[in-house]
């Protein structure tokens, strides 16, 4: 795991499938749930403490990877802004027949507005689809890490992890 990450800086979907922090396909179809992309042993555990449902466990050895209890998790996403690595997302494949909802952390300006059309971007920074901003959350308690919810084509719910604004018309 560490091998591919340390060579490219990107976790592959094969890597992530083995992560203790990702939910099952079936759980993602049922409703919103977090998708934790933390696969390196770094001493860190705020996600464990912030979850109101105790759905994330790191344990006493804080280098251990966070383990997700997909039954307890209701996808509230409060862990998204607390993660110092910006490595937690929310996925909801029950959003509609064509689209899934992806919640991601965002610390750039400008913030998008709900309704905007944007480009969905994958872990390598490649544009993979058109997406629509559904919700922008930036309350004070998130300490300036906004959480943006995007509607993306269902089959790209595990790919889209960032977005870019469409080029401005000349």
């Amino acid at each position, binding site marked *: 795991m*560490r091998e591919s990450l340390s060579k490219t800086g990107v976790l592959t979907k094969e890597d992530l499938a083995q992560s203790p922090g990702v939910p099952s396909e079936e759980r993602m179809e049922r409703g919103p749930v977090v998708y934790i992309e933390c696969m390196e042993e770094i*001493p860190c*555990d705020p996600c464990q403490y912030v979850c109101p449902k105790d759905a994330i466990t790191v344990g006493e050895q804080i280098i251990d990877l966070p383990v997700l209890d997909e039954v307890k998790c209701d996808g509230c996403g409060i862990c998204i802004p*607390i993660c*110092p690595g910006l490595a937690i997302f929310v996925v909801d494949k029950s959003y509609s027949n064509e689209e899934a909802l992806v919640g991601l952390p965002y610390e750039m300006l400008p913030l998008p507005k709900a309704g905007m059309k944007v480009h969905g971007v994958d872990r*390598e920074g490649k544009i993979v689809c058109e997406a629509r901003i559904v919700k922008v959350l930036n309350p004070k308690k998130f300490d300036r890490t906004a959480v943006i919810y995007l509607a993306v084509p269902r089959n790209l719910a595990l790919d889209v992890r960032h977005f870019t604004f469409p080029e401005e018309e000349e």
Partner: protein
Amino acid sequence: MIETEFAVVGAGPAGLSAALEAGRAGVQTMLMDENQAPGGQLVKQIHKFFGSKEHWAGMRGRDIGDKLLEQVKKAGVKVMLDTVVWGIFDEGKVLGIKEGDRNRQIRAQKILLATGASENPLAFRGWTLPGVLGAGAAQTLVNLHRVLPGTRVLMVGAGNVGLIVAYQLLQAGAHVLAVVEALPTIGGYGVHASKIRRMGVPILTGHTVKEASGNAKVERAMVVRVDDRGHPVPGTEKKFEVDTICIAVGLHPLAELAWICGCQFAYISELGGHVPVHTENMETTVPGVYVAGDAAGIEEATVAMEEGRLTGVDVAHCLGYISGGKAQRLRAEIQTRIQLIRTGPFGEALKGAKEKLIERKG
């Protein structure tokens, strides 16, 4: 001559933590920093920190610095800013300082040198052109002074500093064209790398900068692939049109004051180079002189805070403010937390390195 019990040089996380621990125990403490504001590196760290609750994980570095300072002031510590400590005399008992424009001397029973680190240079053709600067320098300019050194950046080095500063330059509106790393793997945390990869910044491992050129300033950089011996591979040159090249190739302890007063040093590359030898309680080979934080070996803010606390405990104990029993208890708690941090693939190397250093003194 000003007299005090405990003089702390450097108000970064290590110095602040030491002053807090000692001040709370009742030790008469002075905390000095050459900057206009305390916090050391914390002031520039606008990202959320890793670690656990005791290290304020999830809080931004800058806010941690503010919190520490608040506590330090409450503990009755005298904080002196715009104060340069330029000399140390009398076997580590007297400090020569410049407070604003005034030259003064401080006699202290115990002194902590928490003077942090300095960025390593990297020489290549054209590296002296305006536009080539340290990654930490870029961070200072942007996060402290709100000025971008340029808008098209090449970052050299994919350790945590390179990756984090690349991200912060993006936040400030710059375009980071690439991060190049001479080693075959990324040295920093995967999550820091992932953050910038998904923003479209390529990370070229096995590459380095060969040359910077331009008319009286950086206008372009030539990047070249290197083989596994670090030698440039001819024919692999790639041009990047950049106006800024940030160098993030490591830090080394800033321990000149320790050198001047005769502390023994050891060369330990995992800790950044020449490091003052010290005990588990952070005391150097010169009795009464301590080091903590990056000056005692390049690690992280969380370790700096713990080392500062260890120093404060030892000073408080030696000066009779806390009992031997209490000191032992506090030390054990701190060491437990340090062990938790120094685990995993990143921490293990540093744990071994520190053990080597402490062995040397014995």
